[in-house]
């Protein structure tokens, strides 16, 4: 029994830490959905674009992935702002469906662009610290998973404080709660949308770096992360930052524990989180922390 528990510790810790990566990805998706009720199906691809951006900065200029975010975050922010302003806001005038199709279009363009520039081969952000680990008592902790967790926590707190403390954040909260009234109070919804998408893209830049340090990636790696984000949001509950955070941890845990308990079965690792999603949807469809 004791052996069983000791053996359980590594996947437990790995699951929680890895959850941080899922949190960063899911937060961007959740923000856009919360504000404009749009499922940004390109979000996973934009995260992978973030990975490639860091990859390019490393390959061409020899810059550390985290350092590349100094340029990457503002660049993705600006890119997101203009994509929303000039593409998605215009499609909203037609319908929400049109905007969804535009997102599909962005997904295809981003994937193809990555194929053309970086070829379909798998890449990773190879850094000196990426594969390192250190010991805490009898446990070994991988640096890359720890970075995922720190990144997840940092982005979640930053986003929450931004929404609570800044005027723009309040406008975003107000517009996602009751858009007609927010507009009546002088808030221009199109501007709020542009900023929301810009922030989601900035999150995607951070997520891209974490993702690239954790896993191999290729131009088609994005969609699985989109699906994972849905799972995280369903488990945690839409519109709750803390819920998304806990949801990410639970998702990671289900993966690592599923793999551990099944003796390393890839299929169980892939399926286990979605079984949980199924259970949450049938028992508590608003998610664990949702209202």
């Amino acid at each position, binding site marked *: 029994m004791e052996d069983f528990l000791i053996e359980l510790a590594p996947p437990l810790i790995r699951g929680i830490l890895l959850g941080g990566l899922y949190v960063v990805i899911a937060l961007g998706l959740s923000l856009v959905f919360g504000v404009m009720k749009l499922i940004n199906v390109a979000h996973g691809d934009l995260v992978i674009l973030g990975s490639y951006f860091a990859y390019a900065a490393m390959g061409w200029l020899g810059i550390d992935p985290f350092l590349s975010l100094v340029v990457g975050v503002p660049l993705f922010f600006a890119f997101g702002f203009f994509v929303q302003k000039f593409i998605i806001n215009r499609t909203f005038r037609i319908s929400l469906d049109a905007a969804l199709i535009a997102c599909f279009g962005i997904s295809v363009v981003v994937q193809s662009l990555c194929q053309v520039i970086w070829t379909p081969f798998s890449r990773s952000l190879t850094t000196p610290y990426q594969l390192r680990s250190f010991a805490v008592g009898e446990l070994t902790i991988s640096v890359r998973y720890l970075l995922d967790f720190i990144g997840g926590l940092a982005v979640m707190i930053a986003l929450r404080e931004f929404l609570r403390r800044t*005027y723009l954040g*309040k*406008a975003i*909260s*107000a517009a996602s*709660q*009751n858009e*007609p*009234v*927010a*507009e*009546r*109070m*002088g*808030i*221009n*919804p199109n501007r709020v949308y542009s900023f929301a998408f810009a922030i989601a893209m900035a999150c995607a830049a951070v997520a891209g770096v974490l993702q690239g340090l954790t896993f191999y990636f290729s131009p088609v790696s994005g969609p699985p992360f989109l699906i994972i984000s849905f799972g995280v949001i369903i488990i945690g509950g839409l519109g709750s930052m803390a819920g998304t955070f806990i949801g990410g941890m639970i998702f990671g845990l289900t993966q690592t524990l599923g793999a551990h308990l099944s003796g390393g079965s890839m299929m169980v690792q892939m399926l286990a989180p979605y079984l949980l999603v199924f259970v949450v949807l049938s028992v508590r469809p608003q998610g664990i922390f949702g209202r």
Partner: protein
Amino acid sequence: MSETAVLSIDRLNKHFGGIVAVKDLSFEVQAGEILGLMGPNGAGKTTLLNMIAGTYSPSSGRVNFCGRDITGLPAHKLCHLGIARTYQIPQPFTSLSARQNILVATKYGGKKAAGMEHDKIFDLVNLSEQKDMLARDLATVSLKRLELARALASNPTLLLLDEVAAGSTDAELPRILGIIEEIRKMGKTVVLVEHVMKVMVEAVDRIIVIDKGEKIAEGTPGEVMKDEKVIAAYFG
């Protein structure tokens, strides 16, 4: 159109499919005036407010505000120009505190001259003690007042009030009348939709009665109450 008109409605029409909600409606509201809009349920009062406030575009006709054609402008632009409205059913931002609700309106709505200080607004609507409570925890009566406070916070020229007194007890009416009187003293122009007759009779300079989307009477409260068409519209 006279020069002092803050709001001028010119042959306004609104259809929803085959249903006519507002039909050929024209009237003016002068600066500093409090105009009452009356009519049976479904007469088109709220639709009219929605067209003035930019929630709906009229099917035809013009809306002029301070001499400027504002027909079809989006709601946030109208807010910046100086039109505020309250909703019959309070629509606060539930996850924000009362104070933050006001802050949002001041920051995004009050792009003109500086308006009232927040503390004064809270004093006026008697919400000072509850200003740090989350809007979702406030009682309905307080939410009605928050709705008023938020509309005032954007420092409007024209205030559209949709049934501020509905659901209030008789004991609360004097306070609501007092608030409307204070708003008048600030020199604001008000269009008031109201079912509570006491508010209409005591607070309003002039009343327009609409029925089935058409204007059927106009005049001082005393005149309108005696009008046969009005009596017929209300009592069949």
